[in-house]
């Protein structure tokens, strides 16, 4: 990839313009404004326009600021791990699985630990699917088991072992204080301890997740907002251990 250095764009190339909104524990006056400005200068911004301040009481002030950043990014240096497998249709996937594996692949999914947001995992797994795209239960190529909400990591793994699962799907929606990172790490460490990490495909998903993060955490793949079952199914079909 060629070097291609870019910056934010407001209305003139490379003007670096950004809008920011944040709260500081300062008074809503010129001193507070100056503090906000200094903060942005430290972040490498210039032409800082603190255009709105609002006293939020209890010693806090809200700032809205427009400023330009000095930072830039070289697009040439960006190497992002995206899921590479081509996305197939349900029919294609079913056929592909039949040919390549000659059996149904067992997929077991859950929303783990205290997380009870099942809409996401349901969208991927349930018959009905999401946005008029069927879920894994509808595929001939899969035996899909959705354990639903608030499943302990331990329970999910033991069900996976019992059922000889090929794939484990994990959903995490609550992210406050990075609880999703903790939960996902716990599951993968348990899987390693059980010696099943390499026998099963581990895939996670959720609105604040992506492939990059999933791989960092030791998963085979990760999917974010707007995923369809066919995205995941294509990945599984291509990457499952035979």
């Amino acid at each position: 990839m060629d070097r291609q250095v870019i910056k934010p764009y407001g209305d003139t190339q490379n003007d670096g313009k950004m809008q920011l909104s944040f709260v500081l524990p300062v008074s809503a006056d010129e001193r507070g404004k100056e503090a906000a400005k200094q903060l942005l200068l430290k972040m490498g911004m210039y032409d800082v326009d603190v255009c709105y301040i609002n006293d939020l009481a209890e010693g806090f002030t809200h700032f809205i600021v427009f400023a330009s950043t000095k930072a830039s990014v070289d697009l040439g240096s960006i190497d992002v791990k995206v899921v590479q497998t081509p996305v197939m249709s349900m029919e294609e996937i079913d056929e592909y699985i039949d040919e390549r594996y000659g059996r149904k692949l067992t997929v077991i999914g859950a929303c783990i630990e205290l997380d009870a947001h099942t809409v996401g995992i349901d969208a991927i797994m349930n018959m009905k699917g999401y946005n008029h795209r069927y879920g894994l239960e509808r595929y001939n190529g899969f035996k899909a088991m959705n354990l639903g909400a608030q499943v302990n990591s331990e329970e999910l793994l033991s069900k996976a072992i019992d059922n000889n699962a090929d794939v484990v799907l994990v959903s995490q929606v609550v992210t406050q204080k990075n609880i999703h990172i903790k939960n996902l790490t716990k599951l993968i460490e348990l899987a390693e301890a059980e010696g099943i990490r390499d026998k099963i495909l581990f895939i996670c998903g959720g609105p604040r997740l992506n492939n990059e993060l999933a791989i960092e955490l030791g998963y085979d793949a990760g999917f974010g907002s707007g995923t369809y079952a066919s995205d995941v199914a294509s990945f599984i079909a291509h990457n499952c251990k035979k």
Partner: protein
Amino acid sequence: MNLNINKHKVEEARGYAREIVAEFKPLLSNYSSVTIERTVVRLMGVDGATSDGEPLPNVMIDHLAAANCLEKGAAYYLANAMLSLSCSAKEIAKQIAERSLDISKVDLLPVDRVFKFIEALTEEGLDKVRQQREYREQMWEKFGARKTPAKYVIVATGNIYEDVIQAKAAVKQGADIIAVIRSTAQSLLDYVPYGATTTGFGGTFATQENFRIMREGLDETGEEVGRYICLTNYASGLCMPEISVMGAVERLDIMLNDAMYGILFRDINMKRTFLDQYFSRMINAYAGIEIQTGEDNYLTTSDAIEKAYTVTASQLINEQFALLSGVPSEKMGLGHAFEIDPAMENSVLYELAHALLTKTLLPDSPVKYMPPTKFASTNVFRTHLMNGMFNFVAQLTGQGVQLLGMMTEAVHTPHLADRALALENADYIFKAVRDLAGEIVLKHDGFITRRANQVLFEAAAFLGEVKNMGLMKAMAAGSFAEIKRDENGGKGLEGVFKKDENYINPFMDKMQQELEV
């Protein structure tokens, strides 16, 4: 703006709901549950926790259960022990926790002495509740009534001390009601944690101490701003009546207290839930606490247009259950939500129809209106705008309590500035269209009127079916929220027991008497 709905259908639908709920009278009078008993001993003074954090009310009730003494009601054994040993309720509980006392082995004193003592304890227990009720009424006198729609915002940092900062700031920015959102899945705990907490996820644990800390903070700031600030939390899950009583004592003003939420959305056993909500709501009624219901939850998983009738049906069932517990209409914050897909043509016309239907069906209720959540966008500017239309519909249709939408709904639990912007949003919209409702008349037989009636008819038909099947069977069949729940499935059934013929719950008795239910 006046909505014409078919009065006969309203009567019919309400009649079905009444019959559906009436079926539960035997259950409600013949059974009790562990949390009901824990509530009783709390009212008698049991409080605190063991060093491993097990709450003393649980210790005591588990102890009585193990000794097969629960069927008579915890009150009797506890009162007898107190009298016999000249100990406070708390002391008794501590001794049980230390395993230095077996309450079933305490000599039984003459029944009439015990009963007299129980009466005194009941008076004392209820007095704490009455005092808070009266104090609240004085505050309304002093500062004037709450605005309509009232502006309700949540705090949910997980840390009660951060919550207080956020709540106080919100009050100064104009909030009328502060809700402390509960830590993820507290519903499923069969005990109420003890003490101040700082480690919740997506919310802060409901504990009596947390209630106290927040109440104190709000009273302080309320004085400063010259408004009485309502505090609310969740009497939901496996500890409904305990939380209600904690709220009654710490002067919460509103409780989220749905008759069916736990069953459907938390897989709690239905008998357990119906029993618990009955007593829980009675406490709220007695304490003058406004209850709110969770019909919005149906729409987080089902389609808001297709399943609009389930909201209406649930409202009417919740209403009948609440009446059974003595909750007056003015204290019934029945719920609904603004959850129609904005990609839908005329989405706001549908929302108007639904909101008007709710308000017209329940004219005396401080109806609780939930903001867009499902279609909230990570584009915070868009969500802010949707919240504006939500506020518009609320002002136009005169909703009671407005759960302000946060522009960051699809991203994170609210930050300080999110709440300030949400309050400003509501202030602007409410003011801008303050008297618009009085200016316009709905076209006779227009879309809005037809749509509202359609939902009403669908709800009536649905309630008719549920009446024929019985509510428990209907739930088993997946009639609500497309979720199937078995009569004997779900969590907490083991905590339900049939009352002995000598069973006593002096608080329930007394409250029933005073509430005339």
